[in-house]
């Protein structure tokens, strides 16, 4: 981590910027005041939501690279809810659009789940493909069916201003912070309960660690895979809904391509989840950190004319260093343990050695559960 940051400092230097002022601008832009903290939280939200979903999928041994598509599916579903039921009162419509997002993303996630469980399609492949399909579908919808009729001849790729009853209410305090933050944290807590405090979580994690043993223990492996991807997609789908109804535009906008809408949260969420050691509660600070990097990057650009792309590159380096040092940490820790200290607590143990290797995807043999 420190190494990565010092590499970032070197990059700042070569760009002709003072690294100290650079990092100061970064930190100030990310955490320097209530408004900055609010912006950071808003950036962190989709990362957190996707990240919680990633925790669920990876823990169940399913590699979900489909966050992008699931966000879009959730956004579309929630937008349709708001378009169909614009007059429902606020107290109902807000939950409805969120649930709509969850269902949209959940279904989108369940498809690769079913394909993997019952047809043996590798989920890395299918989730990547589902991302492409979702992006094109969004583009299709926003070119005609869902476009803002008011924009007339200049057809902007966006929906009309969605019902004000679906706006995520702003939290008290004079910032842009809205209910989505609370929802994201709530879902992180729910994700934690699901994984570590529920019977379903035992099953998902068991399947993720060892599909064979789980099957011999009588667990339905295929069903678990579908459920894991559905839950994972549902979390990303809520992120999609939050991106629509928590945005300042309160519409679904695809101008500038699908990645403009998702803000690449489908990928960055994976990073946040790993930083949180695939533990939903730990993803909260992790996503907050990355949200801070992203908002800080924009202020870095504004104040020092250093392209915000630096932050993306830096994120990549941080990821490399962190995953690269996990093994080292585990070894150090096991030495320390052998030296005498007690054993680790179970599910709360530091996840680096406890989490499944996300890439150990569950293999399904022909004779698994029916």
């Amino acid at each position, binding site marked *: 981590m420190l190494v990565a940051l010092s590499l970032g400092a070197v990059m700042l230097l070569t760009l002709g910027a003072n690294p100290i002022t650079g990092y100061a601008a970064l930190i100030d832009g990310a955490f320097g005041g209530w408004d900055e903290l609010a912006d950071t939280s808003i950036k962190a939200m989709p990362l957190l939501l996707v990240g919680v979903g990633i925790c669920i999928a990876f823990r169940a041994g399913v590699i979900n690279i489909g966050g992008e598509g699931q966000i879009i599916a959730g956004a579309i579903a929630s937008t349709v809810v708001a378009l169909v039921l614009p007059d429902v009162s606020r107290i109902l419509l807000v939950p409805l659009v969120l649930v709509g997002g969850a269902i949209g993303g959940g279904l989108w996630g369940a498809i690769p789940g079913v394909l993997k469980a019952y047809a043996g399609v590798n989920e890395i492949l299918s989730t990547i493909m589902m991302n492409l399909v979702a992006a094109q579908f969004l583009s299709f919808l926003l070119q005609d069916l869902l476009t803002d009729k008011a924009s007339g001849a200049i057809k902007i790729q966006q929906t009309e201003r969605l019902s004000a009853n679906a706006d995520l209410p702003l939290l008290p305090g004079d910032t*842009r912070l809205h209910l989505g933050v609370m929802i994201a944290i709530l879902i992180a807590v729910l994700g934690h309960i699901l994984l570590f405090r529920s019977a379903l979580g035992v099953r998902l994690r068991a399947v993720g660690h060892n599909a064979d043993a789980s099957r011999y223990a009588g667990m339905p492996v295929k069903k678990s895979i579908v459920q894991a991807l559905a839950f994972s997609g549902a979390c990303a789908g809520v992120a999609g809904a939050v991106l629509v109804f928590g945005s*300042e*535009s309160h519409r679904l*906008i695809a101008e*500038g391509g699908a990645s403009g809408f998702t803000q690449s949260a489908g990928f960055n969420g994976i990073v946040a989840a790993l930083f949180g050691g695939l533990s939903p509660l730990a993803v909260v600070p992790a996503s907050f950190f990355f949200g801070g990097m992203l908002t800080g990057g924009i202020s870095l650009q*504004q104040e020092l004319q250093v392209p915000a792309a630096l932050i993306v590159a830096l994120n990549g380096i941080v990821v490399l260093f962190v995953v690269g040092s996990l093994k080292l940490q585990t070894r150090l820790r096991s030495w320390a343990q052998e030296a005498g200290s007690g054993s680790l607590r179970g599910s709360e143990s530091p996840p680096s050695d406890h989490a499944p290797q996300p890439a150990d995807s569950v293999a399904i043999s022909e004779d698994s559960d029916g």
Partner: protein
Amino acid sequence: MKATSTKVVASAVTALALVAASCGASDDAADAPAEDAPAEVAAEAPADEPAEPAEEVAEPIKIGIVAPSAENDLAWTQSMVDSVSRVAEGRDVEVAVSGGLFVVQDAAAAIRGYAEDGFDLVIAHGTQFGAPLQEIADDFPEVSFALGTSTDFFGKDNIYAYSVEAGEGGYVNGVMAAQLTQSNVIGVVGPVPAGDAKLYIDGFVAGAEAQNPDVEVNVNYIDSFGDVLLASEAAKAFVESGADVLTGTAQMVVGATGIAAEEGVPWFGTQSNQTDLGTDIVVASQVYHWEVVLNTILDQIAGGKLGGERRDLAQQRWPRDGVQRQLRPRRWY
């Protein structure tokens, strides 16, 4: 076929700019249109850096630009950055630019950021920024915002909507293109059928067809402002299907101009001066001289009017259906 057209271009023109003049198009604007925009050749475009903050003089006007693509994209964003730096030559302004904000939510944050930092005018240079701007503008009644291209200021007192009659320069380009083509097939690479891109392309098609009814203008909206690869492949598809003149609009056309340069096919540019993309193929570029609009807006801000009207950049007025009046392209060489 390729060889002949190359020669035609070489002898024709290298670079010239279509200059747009301003015309107050708002219903209440009674000011005389600044008709005589100089037909300057926009060759020098010192846009690599935003203007330096002006020397300590009393209260410079602070302008913030929020734009979707890079400041020097040789297209949409650069047209505004160049224009503002030209404004800065004659006025006491302080400029800050946030480019590359294709994520609407990031752009919204930047717009809000400038407003909070006490900027006098925040230019949201992208149609898609209209949605968040509508809501942001209410929070900063003392700040003036400009949104383009847009014909709608959403009834807000502090939003100027600006747009460009891109079809006019498009029409001129179309007329010229129709004279250049020998195969009578012209290809157009567009982003999405919206905004100034659509206006330009519609004008171009009208111009070409008015000049020569036999000309077939094929348009390909590639659904992306950013995908140069698709733009390049679209251009290639045009060339392969017989097109010997190309044009296109938005920042991804750099992919298409690469093909044009490789194949020696004449290219018509728009938004910014695109001569740099290929000195031997770019026949003409329509350049958006936003300063005409900006100066009016700045004057009005100085007079206390923060918005609530629409300002259009136009070449000359002609009936909006565009076809009636023939332009003689020779005038532009």
